[in-house]
């Protein structure tokens, strides 16, 4: 009971901090917009779709996946931040378990990503993707599943890193390959087989595939069946939550 209250208050803190950072909110709104509008329409002209979807529609779920990944990776830095500014001590000395602290942090970061993801979802109408209520109802839990895993990647890395700079560097190394090799921007079936292998071990591949199935609602021929996407995403989440809580409890 008191653990739940602890998790709740840590979660709440994360969101308050996030929402108070106005410039970050604004910039995170524009970045996906640029991808969709500039990259999407620019490259869209030179790519001929075989699926009947235009290119912007095709990458739209991918951009949502990207937003979830980038935001949660970026927010993972808050753990290092808390350590550097001393606040982590206040939490560590409280009568609450390390697991609860990690879970509070994870839920907080995931919620931040969800807020971000929802904003991008609303941008769909700009490029003509119809977001109906049934889609929203299905896509929210799906986005949450995707982002729990990515939030844990960020937080787990942050457990092992002491400086903001080194985290920033590692973040780029994780973000870029995961994003580019997830099928977010182009179909991955035609990649050389060694790269395809990377695509298959990339958890975001299944996230993006599932997001496409749900958001494009029938217009998209999926790479994997939805149940398979979901199974892999959930397995990855469970694995990352365990890895994250373990890494967090390792630190003094």
């Amino acid at each position, binding site marked *: 009971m*008191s653990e739940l*209250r*602890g998790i*709740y*208050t*840590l979660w*709440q*803190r994360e969101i*308050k*901090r996030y929402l*108070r*950072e106005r410039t970050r909110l604004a910039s995170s709104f524009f970045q996906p917009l640029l991808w969709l509008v500039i990259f999407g329409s620019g490259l869209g002209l030179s790519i001929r779709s075989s699926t009947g979807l235009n290119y912007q529609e095709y990458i739209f779920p991918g951009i949502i996946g990207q937003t979830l990944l980038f935001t949660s990776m970026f927010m993972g830095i808050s753990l290092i931040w808390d350590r550097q*500014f*001393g*606040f982590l*001590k*206040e*939490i*560590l*000395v*409280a*009568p*609450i378990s390390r697991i609860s602290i990690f879970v509070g942090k994870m839920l907080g970061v995931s919620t931040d990503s969800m807020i971000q993801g929802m904003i991008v979802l609303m941008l769909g109408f700009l490029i003509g993707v119809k977001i109906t209520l049934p889609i929203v109802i299905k896509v929210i839990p799906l986005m949450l599943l995707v982002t729990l895993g990515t939030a844990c990647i960020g937080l787990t890395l942050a457990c092992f890193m002491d400086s903001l700079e080194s985290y920033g560097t590692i973040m780029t190394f994780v973000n870029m390959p995961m994003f580019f090799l997830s099928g977010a921007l182009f179909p991955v079936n035609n990649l050389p087989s060694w790269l395809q292998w990377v695509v298959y071990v990339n958890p975001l591949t299944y996230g993006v595939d599932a997001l496409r199935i749900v958001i494009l609602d029938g217009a998209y021929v999926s790479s994997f069946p939805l149940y398979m996407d979901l199974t892999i995403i959930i397995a990855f989440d469970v694995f990352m939550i365990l890895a994250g809580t373990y890494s967090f409890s390792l630190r*003094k």
Partner: protein
Amino acid sequence: MNAIETMDLTKKFGSLTVVDSVNIKVEQGGIFGLLGPNGAGKSTIISMLCTILKPTSGTALVNGYDIVKFPSQVRKSIGIVFQDPSVDDRLTGKENLEMHADLYGVPASEKRSQIDKVLELVELSDRGNDLVRNYSSGMRRRLEIARSLVHTPKVLFLDEPTIGLDPQSRDHIWSYIRELLKTEDITIILTTHYMEEADKLCKQVAIVDRGQIVALDTPESLKEKLGGETITVKSQNNPLYVEKIKEAGIAKSVVIAGDEVKVTVDSAHTILPSIVNIAALNHIFIESISLQEPQLDDVFLHYTGRALREGGGKELSGMGAIMRRQIR
């Protein structure tokens, strides 16, 4: 029951022994001072007592609970103001306190009144809804003190609560602490670099040096034990002067503190002439000379060979370090 009892409490970082078999008993009630130069291991002792560091060996009881076996019971019993800031400056003062109340499971019915009470104690009631990033450093420190009290701890650790504050804010903080002792049933463990304050406030003090307790008693008995009086001399060749006084064998202890020589003697009035003579014989020019009853500073100097000033004392070097070993 003692508020705190340590049993051979030891902490090593690699091969470095930072806390070395510390045994202290702290009675309930009042303030217990932990004094020691920079790097003595005070904060490390506190970190272990509040269970964020595991002892390498030994253990301790805090409010009757073993810090190794029952850390969460210990955590519920204690409050702490860390040496380094630990408030969230993107939240308001009140939000920081609310979060603390939630983390410590303060009953919802008491949460509000408890928060108002501690804010009032540290005179921040009217600033509770401001973001902490807009607070001055003194206000932040006061907020941390308030926060450490939200869950009415039995034992309160204050690690340099007044560091870096101006004299006025410092006085404020000491007066809250006195107020607290009057109204609450609480034991306070304090580290500070302000000796006069420690002298006035502490029921007992332990002097820590290189991870060991080198003295533990009431400030009065420590001063009494040191005995005699202190002659403070400023000369143009302190190391030589110390050596010569030592050779003469007329002083109980001789140490360099900053740019002065402190000589502890039984009776300053009879020995003062010899002290001056020694300077004259050795052509050491004396710039100033004064007499005092021993202060806690002198006790500290006696046991650690280092003066304790704001920001910490300096190591004696060369001659001084050698003298120190002989004196001990």
